[in-house]
């Protein structure tokens, strides 16, 4: 599949996810957000793919860290079904940047997150994707969103 088609498909998946959450959350959902991509060089494939990877990695980490806050079994299952697609996106984009980096927890450059090198390269210690808390995630996404998001989890 051509690279542009892959990115379009990811876009469409994210739309499906967004609309799904809208329909499930109803009035409880966050208001629509205004993205701020001024830091991205859309004329550079590398820049675009790196930002895409960053967002996918952050998404996976967000879902993995949010699982513990879901109290209903059905919601946990649904979140699992969505995060696995985000992981597929992440793996695919990583391979587009560097072949065979599909499972690498590369540092998320530009977002202030560095996975310790020892964790990336030591056999047996790897094998775990990241998990981040609902406080950490909005802070990391903040540079790319005009509005301020805070979590309401108590």
């Amino acid at each position, binding site marked *: *599949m051509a690279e542009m*088609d892959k990115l*379009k*498909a990811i*876009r*469409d*998946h994210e*739309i*499906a*996810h*967004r*609309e*799904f959450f*809208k*329909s*499930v959350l109803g009035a409880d959902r966050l208001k629509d957000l205004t993205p701020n991509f001024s830091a991205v060089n859309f004329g550079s494939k590398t820049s675009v793919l790196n930002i895409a990877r960053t967002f996918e990695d952050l998404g*996976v980490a967000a*879902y*993995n*860290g949010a*699982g*513990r806050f*879901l*109290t209903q*079994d*059905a919601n*946990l*299952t*649904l979140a*699992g*079904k*969505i*995060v*696995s*697609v*985000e*992981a*597929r996106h*992440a*793996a*695919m984009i*990583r*391979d587009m940047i560097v*072949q*065979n980096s*599909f*499972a*690498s927890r590369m540092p998320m450059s530009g977002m202030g997150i560095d996975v310790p090198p020892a964790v990336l390269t030591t*056999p*047996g*210690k*790897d*094998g*775990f*994707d*990241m*998990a981040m808390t609902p406080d950490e995630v909005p802070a990391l996404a903040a540079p790319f969103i005009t509005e301020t998001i805070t979590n309401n989890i108590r």
Partner: protein
Amino acid sequence: MTLFHLFDSLAQHDADIHDRVSTRRASIKHLSDVGRKAGMTSLALFLGGVLQQAYAGGNRTTAVSAVVDTVKFAYQLEKAELGLYTQARALGTFSAANRAALDVIFANEDGHVAALAATLKNLGLSDADLANPMMFPPRTADLTGSANATMTPLEPNALTDEMACISVLCGSEENGGRAYRGNAYTLKSNPDVLQAALQIHSVETCHATHWREVLGRMVWIQTGDLTQAPNFKVPAMVYAKTGTTTNGLEYPNESNATQAGKAGSVFGVSADRVAVRRGSRHGRRDGAGAAVRLQAADVGFRRSVSPPVLSRLAASPSARKGRRVG
């Protein structure tokens, strides 16, 4: 209150606590190291594990039993995968690039097995338990999916053909993904173990993704997966809508276009192709062939039933033809 004050106060109520639980600083430190290797950071988990070991058997709650059972299942699954990758790495059929991918995934699965063993021990199992063949029947990996020559092979060319082998590995990863998704809810009562399982699950999905790419398939589930084709038979089985299995049970995926009881049209998905509803900012249709899919896994299978694909890829070495043992 320090950890040792806690034990001392417990000792006032239970004179045998110091016999039941090794409270020497060395053993507590060991638990902390195990925790780091397991990828978990909660002291509460280890304290719970220490106390659970002390009081296991009599006072174990239903919720804790469910967690232990699920982690045992995951442990068996990861060991089976590790066995398949060990077998694959010994083959001479892989290109340099695919061999490198094998090594990456092997290291991950090795980490998963170690982490789940550590988790089981912190949930109360002993080294003797982990080595107990009644509790964890030994399995021999079989890439051809013949349950070590006791059944018709799923993929007879797995040992001689690189893509055939990769299709089996891909199926194993997809199978594992369904297993984690289907059983995650049983870990709800232990948030740290749940999180660790989620962190493993997303990596398994990354593995499946890479093998799909290598096989020239779409990286996400789609209708075409279900068509038996060269080098995609095993992954397709993982999501088969229909088909018979040796125990008469099927594990079909639900319709992708329906999620949480809501029809896909509600959130802009049609069954076979991209269709974005008018009114969204991207209100146009793409051509057929680019299907939008949410993950095709349904609630997966219950932990108490061994998935038919898995049972053929990792069979007990003592299995007799026509009868499964263990």
